[in-house]
């Protein structure tokens, strides 16, 4: 049974290929009402996957599929294989996937694809800037985007971009003092760039106590304080002793019985 020529794809380009329909079984339950475009494009994708055809038209087909369903795992992997097979520039690919980021901020595949591009390129000078913009974008309003922060951690560690990270984190905390991701990142930076000696910890504890003084019910700050003091007795740290003394002076504890 010959299929009719494609409506959404270029008919002349695809006249040598038969699309493969989705097989939901003979008696399917809960059929999803896909759009005509989706059915057509997926049909041709299945055909291309079957033939393992890594051509320019296959590449542009993957772009179509991603536009309709960015969560499809297969198409991303296949796209990467096409780019390798065609010997295309991964920097262009990185630019292309950057365009998609604002519309799909919580999509695992896009972030994973980004990471693959960077691995192929051995890093990119604009990557950190992209992440800076993404996390501080007012329209997106997603300063706690889990994928973005996880990606940032990888980028910084992989390409040794620790310098300037603390300054960025200060900026993030200015935008939102309760940003737990920023606090987590600060700990990450401290762990990797310092020896986490008592002196370092004390300095950080002093810093976080200042944050707590401004917003006493900031859960993230308290968690950070606790993390910094981990493994040591609290009386090791002068700032803590001072803060505790100040609290006792303001609000004396009840006398012992």
């Amino acid at each position, binding site marked *: 049974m010959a299929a009719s020529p494609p409506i959404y794809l270029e008919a002349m380009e695809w006249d040598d290929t038969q699309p493969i329909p989705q097989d939901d079984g003979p008696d399917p*339950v809960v059929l999803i009402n896909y759009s005509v475009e989706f059915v057509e494009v997926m049909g041709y994708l299945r055909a291309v996957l079957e033939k393992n055809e890594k051509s320019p038209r296959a590449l542009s087909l993957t772009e179509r599929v991603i536009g309709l369903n960015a969560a499809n795992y*297969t198409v*991303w992997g296949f796209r990467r294989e096409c780019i390798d097979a065609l010997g295309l520039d991964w920097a262009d690919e990185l630019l292309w996937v950057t365009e998609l980021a604002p519309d799909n901020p919580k999509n695992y595949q896009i972030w994973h694809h980004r990471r693959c591009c960077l691995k192929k390129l051995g890093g990119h000078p604009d990557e950190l800037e992209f992440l800076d913009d993404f996390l501080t974008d007012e329209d997106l309003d997603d300063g706690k985007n889990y994928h973005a922060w996880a990606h940032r951690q990888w980028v910084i560690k992989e390409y040794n971009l620790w310098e300037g990270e603390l300054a960025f984190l200060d900026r993030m905390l200015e935008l939102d003092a309760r940003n737990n991701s920023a606090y987590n990142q600060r700990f*990450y930076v401290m762990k990797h760039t310092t020896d986490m000696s008592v002196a370092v910890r004390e300095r950080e504890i002093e810093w976080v106590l200042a944050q707590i003084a401004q917003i006493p019910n900031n859960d993230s700050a308290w968690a950070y304080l606790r993390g910094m003091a981990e493994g040591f007795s609290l009386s090791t740290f002068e700032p803590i002793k001072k803060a505790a003394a100040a609290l006792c002076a303001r609000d004396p504890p009840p006398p012992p019985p």
Partner: protein
Amino acid sequence: SGNQLQSWFYFWFFNATDINGKFLHQNIKNKTKKTLTRIIIRNGCVDKNFFSSENLLSLYSALFTLFCFENFSLEIYRNFQITIYNFLRKIKSQKTYRCSRFGESDPRTFFCILAISSMLNILTKNLKKNTPFYFQNSCNFDGGFGCEKMGESHGALTYCQLASLTFFSDRKFSNHIHPNFENWLIKKLKPFEFGIQGRLTKLPDSCYLFWIGGISIICCFLFPIEFLNIILFCKEKKTQGFCDQIGKIPDLYHTCYSLCGLAFLNFTEKKLKFFKEIILKKNKKKIF
């Protein structure tokens, strides 16, 4: 390849009805069973073209939907064991598991592997090989677990890690629990904000009744019955479905996990009653 979420729709729906004890017509059950069985395994291996091409998470949801129904015949069960075992061997990278041939790896994948192989009785030494290193030092400074070492602690990912730990009966794994872990967990219960959060300083969400509540159940931590109120308030009037926060649009995902949370609360309440009765009996014995 089919729509990525399709297998999850199946799972959320059937799991929710299963927990609720709702009656489903045998016809629907049979149809679903047939469709899923036929589609998960095709040509002797895990189907490439359905449920997003051999993707572990989709496989997990499809299989566990099937497990909501009655048991299969021995022939089908054996077929599943062999085919899926081969698939699991294929996606194992050195010290952990990927989602698929091209995919990412994180606590979710590890948990899915253990859950699937345990249900199918194929959790072999080979599958577990080298993976215990995965737990070493993988928790975050505040006691929770994130997607990678030192990734921000997240409720659902912590659940996956904890649940994975239960599959290893080796006692030394309890060392991988941070001393602050219980505190981290309790901090996620936000009675004033009327819910449970997944990360510090984020908004509460009803699905964390399952993720955080689940950890409480596994570790026998506090899980107060008062959180039942969240379920009642997150239930939307018109559809009777559940949403993530009060007043939002309900969906299958939150319905499924809110019901799971309800089951957990029921379990905690029953356990509490049971122990109260025992203590009461003991006290009575002392008096008389």
